[in-house]
């Protein structure tokens, strides 16, 4: 590394056609990768292992690019990825950043993200699947194709399922058009494992498996603050405590979806706040009153009384 920089200092005006050294840190700065990684650190709470993996991937791609410039490698590295994790752990958000990152590094030409699920790929009748899948693939060319809940593509219980056809086309394109698009599969860890074991072709074509851990309560609280700040709202101190308790309780109730549950909770809190203001206010309200979430806006949630009635143990089934 130091040797390379020295070489550059010795020959400041090397002709660009015959590069014989590469300054990695300059590449890092100039490609704009640094900004994306910093942005990732700043804007996404938690997810430390994910950030670490992305950092490693970025380093690998940067080195690979440098090697290409020196004529040491000619093949595009396999970039297809798999994101596993529970709902609401930020897979889509990170995929968006990833497409941006790959674009800055020059591994995809346009850097847009096409997000699809089974319905966008698999058709309803014979002969419907191939055109549908190809349509999506054509749109994703030059960018990143993000397949959410990818394991639904494969239905082991139905051998005539059209998902298999979509899988075959996908595999073919993942192999032949590695320069043109990057495929990111996403889904819950255990189901993805089962999906891969029944489709070994997929596993071997995916180089990067990134696991998204659940958020801790503290992280979820930070996320909730961030979400509110984004919409120009703030908690009162009492509401802060209520929110922390809410997160604690919500985690153990059914259908918990990490950050997504928090977003929904905040949406409902805003609804209650609006209602409260509407019913209680007489006279003009200032900006602070309009943007403050109070304790009662959160405490009124059903989470504090033990979740949805239907989810309570021993409740009569409707």
């Amino acid at each position, binding site marked *: 590394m130091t040797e390379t920089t020295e070489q550059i200092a010795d020959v400041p005006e090397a002709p660009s056609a015959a590069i014989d050294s590469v300054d990695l840190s300059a590449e890092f700065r100039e490609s704009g990768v640094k900004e994306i990684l910093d942005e990732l650190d700043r804007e996404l709470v938690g997810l430390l292992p994910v950030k670490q993996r992305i950092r490693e991937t970025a380093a690998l791609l940067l080195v690979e690019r440098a090697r290409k410039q020196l004529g040491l490698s000619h093949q595009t590295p396999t970039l297809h990825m798999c994101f596993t994790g529970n709902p609401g752990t930020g897979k889509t958000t990170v995929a968006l950043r990833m497409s941006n990152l790959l674009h800055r590094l020059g591994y995809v*030409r*346009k850097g*847009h993200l096409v997000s699809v699920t089974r319905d966008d790929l698999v058709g309803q009748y014979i002969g419907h699947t191939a*055109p549908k899948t*190809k*349509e999506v*693939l*054509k*749109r994703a*060319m*030059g*960018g990143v194709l993000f397949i959410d809940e990818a394991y639904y593509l494969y239905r082991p219980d139905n051998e005539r399922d059209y998902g298999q056809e979509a899988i075959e086309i996908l595999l073919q394109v993942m192999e032949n*058009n590695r320069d*043109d698009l990057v495929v990111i599969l996403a889904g819950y860890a255990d189901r993805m494992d089962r999906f891969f074991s029944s489709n070994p072709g997929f596993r071997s074509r995916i180089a990067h498996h990134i696991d998204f851990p659940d958020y801790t309560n503290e992280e979820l609280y930070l996320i909730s603050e961030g979400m509110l700040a984004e919409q120009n709202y703030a908690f009162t101190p009492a509401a802060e405590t209520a929110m922390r308790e809410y997160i604690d309780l919500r985690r153990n109730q059914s259908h918990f979806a990490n950050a997504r549950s928090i977003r929904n909770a905040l949406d409902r809190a805003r609804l209650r706040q609006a209602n409260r203001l509407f019913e209680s206010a007489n006279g003009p309200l200032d900006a602070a009153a309009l943007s403050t979430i109070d304790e009662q806006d959160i405490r009124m949630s059903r989470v504090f009384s033990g979740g949805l009635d239907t989810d309570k143990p021993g409740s009569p089934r409707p």
Partner: protein
Amino acid sequence: MRITQGCFSFLPDLSDEQISKQVEYCLENDWAVGLEYTDEPHPRNTYWEMWGHPMFDLKDPKGVMMELAECRTAHPQSYIRVNAFDSERGFETVRMSFIVNRPDNEPRLTMTRTDVHGRSQSYSWQAAHRG
């Protein structure tokens, strides 16, 4: 006889790379790119067969090039053209169209004069396929 219609038809045939760049230009302008093919290049034959749907929402010319490759395998001895449709209000028409594939033996266009009423004449064109 070399058929000349659409853009670039007086130039040598475009290479795939050049076609790709032209498509890129179309996509930058938000035009929907479609492929059409025919074996009848008569100038009055405006409507060629469509190859698939026009491609909306593409970001990269690779999608078009993939379809073109497929169309060429299916119809190697046909004329294939790329059409770029502009949906902007006021245009709502094909803004650019160029031929990207030709048969090895192109038909000859011949003109026939026919005497009609008095001394007036009518002209008609025919595409004569050889062999």
